[in-house]
């Protein structure tokens, strides 16, 4: 090795050593781990029973399983008046027990309070209200639907179509929306020459293909789009999205396509938008933590109301 190459090698070695030192190491920050708290999750709408989930949080450093709690005392109040104590029922979609009212259905404009007591954890409570509904103006299919073969025999296809939903934002107030597109699952039975259609009661969301993810749009982590009217107060809002069905074998199962416009309370929007942003965050050195909204006093989670307006269009 020539002298020049030796110097070059030593320089590189020095750089490598310096980088090697400027690295990562496990540290004990000496931070006291947070005690577990009750977690309450509920979104409620008019004319549906209250439904609510109770669990407990765990410390960020804990790897214990996350527990749901079935033996909590849960009450819905209006002011100081207990309206109804909730009971547990099995929720097949979630595969576990949740809490529900037996008769009480919330109404628009009334502030409801939930109070939860469970285990030896601090009691928690929260209050929210259902805002007025904002009606849909129209739902249209733009252009001609396309059929994407999924199987080689082209018996199973996915339908791609462009949908346009329009509504009028009320002026002079801050509104938050959650726009969902879906169709109802239909069971088809052929009886001789007759085709019998029957709704199964299952709602199947349309997958939105090209939702913009800059404000005021935020593609919800689960389904649909969250919208804040801050920059378009009082305007007619029109949204056009490419949507896709699940792969299907028979097009007859599509009867109508639906749009649901949820008008959410501020808490509804803040929680869903912050949770959505958390779910979308990529862990890079440039990203910063997303602060999760919480409106449960002494606990975590969300208790928030929303109102709905529906519109539909014949599928094909």
């Amino acid at each position, binding site marked *: 090795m020539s002298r020049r190459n030796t110097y070059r090698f030593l320089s590189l070695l020095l750089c490598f050593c*310096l980088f090697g030192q400027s690295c990562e190491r496990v540290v004990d920050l000496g931070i006291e781990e947070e005690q577990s708290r009750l977690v309450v999750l509920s*979104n409620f709408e008019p004319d549906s029973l209250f439904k609510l989930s109770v669990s407990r949080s765990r410390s*960020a450093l804990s790897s214990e399983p*996350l527990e749901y709690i079935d033996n909590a005392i849960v009450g819905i109040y209006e002011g100081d008046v207990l309206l109804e104590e909730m009971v547990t029922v099995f929720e097949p*979609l979630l595969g576990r027990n949740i809490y529900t009212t037996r008769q009480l259905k919330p109404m628009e404009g009334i502030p409801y309070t939930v109070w939860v007591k469970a285990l030896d954890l601090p009691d928690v409570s929260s209050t929210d209200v259902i805002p007025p509904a904002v009606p849909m103006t129209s739902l249209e299919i733009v252009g001609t639907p396309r059929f994407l073969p999924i199987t080689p025999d082209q018996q199973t296809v996915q339908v791609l179509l462009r949908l346009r939903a329009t509504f009028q934002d009320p002026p002079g107030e801050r509104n938050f929306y959650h726009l969902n597109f879906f169709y109802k699952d239909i069971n088809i039975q052929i009886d001789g020459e007759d085709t019998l259609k029957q709704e199964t009661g299952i709602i199947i969301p349309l997958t939105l293909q090209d939702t913009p993810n800059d404000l005021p749009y935020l593609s919800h982590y689960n389904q649909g789009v969250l919208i804040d009217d801050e920059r378009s107060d009082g305007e007619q809002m029109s949204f056009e999205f490419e949507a896709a069905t699940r792969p299907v074998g028979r097009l007859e199962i599509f009867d109508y396509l639906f749009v649901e416009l949820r008008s959410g309370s501020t808490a509804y929007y803040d929680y869903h938008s912050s*949770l959505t942003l958390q779910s979308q965050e990529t862990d890079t050195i*440039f990203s910063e933590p*997303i602060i999760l909204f919480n409106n449960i006093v002494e606990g975590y989670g969300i208790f928030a109301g929303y109102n709905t307006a529906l519109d539909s269009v014949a599928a094909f």
Partner: protein
Amino acid sequence: LEGAVYLEDEWQITPRLHANIGLRASLWQADEKTYYNLQPRLAATYDLQPNIQLKASYSYMSQYLHLLTTTGIGLPNDLWVPTTDRVAPQDSWQIVAGVEYRRNKFFDLSIEGYFKKLNNVITYQEGSSLTSIDAENWENNVTTGEGWAYGLEIFVDKNFGRTTGWLSYTLAWSLRQFDRVNLGQTFPFRYDRRHNLKLVLIHRLGSNWELSGNWVYGTGLATTLPISEYQASIPGFSGRSELAINFGEKNSFRLPNYHRLDIGANYSFGKNTKSHTLSFGFYNIYNRRNPLYYRLSRGTRNPLNPRGKQYIEVSLLPITPYFSYSIEF
């Protein structure tokens, strides 16, 4: 399009009282909007004694370029972006009051208090970062807010003798509030350092050699760490369940205090027309590991973290030698 006019007047009001009055008028033409600003400045000094001077100033400033930076810690990623129809110019006003004491051939001492209010400052809204914006969409990914900075600065300067140097200490607060960061709540800014101390000493050895030392100490930067988590599975929402992470308030934790000692030596030589200086020394001579940030490691495959979740400290710049040569002519 940017234009500005500035007027300034020096005014000796009394033999002891002196003022500097200025006014800057500026405009900025965005696509559709035109922004105008009148920015008054006033600075006054009063000679209490021949070696003691009181001073005070007020200034209002507006600027049409925004520094788009993060509000927490991590790698610095600053961008300069212009004022637009949607992003208004940022402005600030500041008041400063202080006293300066001069002890000839020994040292100067200055003590100042300040308060600064910033308006229309911008930052990335939560969920956005340098990697998620471009020239087309950056306005949709920023949020506008306010800032406050206030504190006290003490500065001692020794500029006589073979050993010179200065000592500065700052007691400071720096806060920010943005609509779409920390759920709209005020939080400590990334540069919110309660105590800042800097000591610089230079000792001349003859006519060619000079030794220097520089020690800095600062309160640890504010940072955000996860404190708890839960499964967000909401009744009525079929489909995905998300792991919800609770960070508490933004920047509610502190990194360890920052400190570092740099030492060096300068050797100067040359004639009058050309002077040469060779410098060499070490940054961070006692190899302090000042963390840049922490992150929570969740996996168990990481050899650093076989036991599961633990905090990982990321630090840069251990002891680092430097060498430089400069020539002046």
